[in-house]
């Protein structure tokens, strides 16, 4: 029996004119859609996807592995939402892509890598298939204590808890929070996946379960304020949890650290370095947090902050969003997002790419190796840079 596809915003999909502005930054210097940049076919651009989705909803094309791959190659960077020429309509572009993916989940026709991601989260509670008991190991030696009614919960997330690069970032933030006397605790082995990528990838049932369990846990422990390491977690806590009754004050760690530096609670020494800052999509475009990471870097004596050609609202994604960090559907070719981005960073002649997101840190670190730039470019979390400035 034929499967009748439907999505919430089906009635407006036809309005995409496919003019193509969605795949550019504001000044048109390059293609700013990571999947279009990687593959070069219009089907991989937001407009191409819109036309494919319309044809699919009208049963003019059938679900296929290739169609699913095209949908899942979107990294949810939100560039299209900002560049589309149609006001209001453009706000729904990311929703339409996510709804189409959710429909593929309902149909059971998702790429194997996406299926494996969901399975790992559902079975292990994290995409790394590592034991829950190891989730809080990163915090050893940071001075952070288990959460017991402190002012803030510091939420590390899956990447910060299990990935080697993410753990380094989490440890740096944890040490700074503890040293500055911030009242913050962690859940450790009780922390669970925030579900941001699960939702973006379209598994709404699994996302709802994760979110509801987290909300119950947060409420049971009396959590009012959360500091996140990961902008992806910040995004889902701020935007999706309130819809399920989870209303918390959510901060990114760079906002807290910028405040501590202003209040002179973190002493900084001279650290001479030319640094460029890579905006995380979920911190910048999704949540309009552009200032705090830059304020921190500018506050460090000796640091020369230079901007990349594409920055802030027009920053090019690292390629790790939309679950691609785990599914790697964009691949590692020459025009893959991470490699393009580190080449752009190199153009600034900076020696350090500062990042505020563990996924960006991992994606760009890998890209630096692939591009053979290890001797000239280093990827560091904002807190790691602060630590270097404090070590002198």
């Amino acid at each position: 029996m034929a499967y009748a596809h439907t999505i919430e915003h089906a009635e407006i999909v036809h309005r995409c004119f496919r003019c193509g502005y969605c795949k550019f930054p504001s000044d048109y210097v390059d293609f700013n859609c990571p999947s279009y940049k990687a593959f070069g076919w219009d089907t991989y651009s937001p407009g191409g996807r819109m036309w494919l989705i319309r044809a699919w909803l009208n049963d003019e094309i059938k679900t296929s592995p290739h169609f699913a791959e095209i949908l899942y190659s979107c990294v949810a960077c939100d560039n299209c939402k900002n560049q589309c020429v149609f006001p209001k309509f453009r706000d729904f572009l990311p929703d339409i892509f996510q709804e189409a993916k959710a429909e593929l989940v309902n149909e059971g026709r998702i790429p194997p890598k996406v299926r494996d991601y969901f399975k790992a989260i559902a079975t292990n509670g994290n995409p790394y298939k590592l034991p829950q008991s190891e989730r809080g190991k990163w915090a050893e030696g940071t001075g952070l204590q288990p959460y017991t009614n402190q002012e803030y919960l510091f939420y590390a997330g899956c990447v910060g808890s299990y990935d080697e690069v993410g753990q380094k970032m989490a440890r740096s933030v944890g040490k700074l929070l503890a040293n500055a006397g911030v009242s913050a605790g962690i859940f450790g082995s009780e922390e669970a996946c925030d579900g941001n990528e699960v939702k973006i990838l379209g598994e709404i049932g699994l996302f709802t379960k994760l979110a509801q369990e987290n909300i119950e846990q947060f409420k049971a422990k009396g959590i009012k304020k959360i500091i996140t390491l990961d902008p992806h977690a910040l995004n889902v806590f701020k935007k999706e949890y309130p819809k399920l009754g989870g209303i918390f004050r959510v901060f990114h760690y760079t906002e807290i650290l910028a405040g501590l530096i202003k209040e002179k609670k973190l002493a900084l020494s001279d650290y001479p370095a030319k640094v460029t800052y890579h905006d995380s999509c979920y911190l910048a475009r999704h949540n309009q947090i552009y200032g705090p990471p830059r304020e921190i870097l500018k506050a460090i004596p000796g640091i020369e902050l230079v901007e990349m050609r594409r920055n802030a609202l027009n920053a090019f994604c690292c390629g790790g969003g939309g679950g691609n960090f785990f599914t790697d559907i964009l691949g590692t070719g020459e025009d893959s997002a991470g490699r393009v981005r580190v080449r752009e960073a190199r153009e600034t002649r900076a020696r350090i790419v500062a990042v505020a997101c563990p996924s960006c840190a991992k994606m760009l670190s890998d890209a630096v190796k692939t591009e053979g730039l290890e001797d000239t470019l280093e990827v560091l979390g904002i807190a790691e840079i602060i630590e270097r400035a404090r070590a002198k």
Partner: protein
Amino acid sequence: MDSKDGGFMSVQYMKEMLLEMPQRGIADFADVPKGGGFEYSGPITILSHFPRYAAKVVELAAKYDVLYASSARLISGGHCMMFSISFAFNRNDPAMMTRVKHALDEATAFALEMGGIPWKPNFMEQKMIMEKMDPAARKLLQMIKKNLDPQGIMNPGNWEVN
């Protein structure tokens, strides 16, 4: 016009023009009927005929109950100009799309009657041009196509002389 630059300007300047606000305005026009589409015919014609083209666009829009936009564009060194006729449609409204097609076909027929030559003609415009073409010119076109593309693999469907 004084500089004789025309509609085709130097590449860098043209790139800016292509990607700046005027073109975004064109995209906006496509969304007026909230349907994501417009089709245009851009006959190259002589300047003194422009007022009649402008009147015709308004007449066709009223006749077929469609939204219109028109513009003029200099070609190359200013030796001729294009009068662009656009009709917007809603891709979810097949009846509106049919009305736009009829309006455009009638606009093309008008342009050919006036001695105009459609710019980048679509299939229907090609057909109408070839019907109006001098038989010797049509035969020449057929001969060129037959000799250079005997298997009909180059742009099949385009400029097919039957």
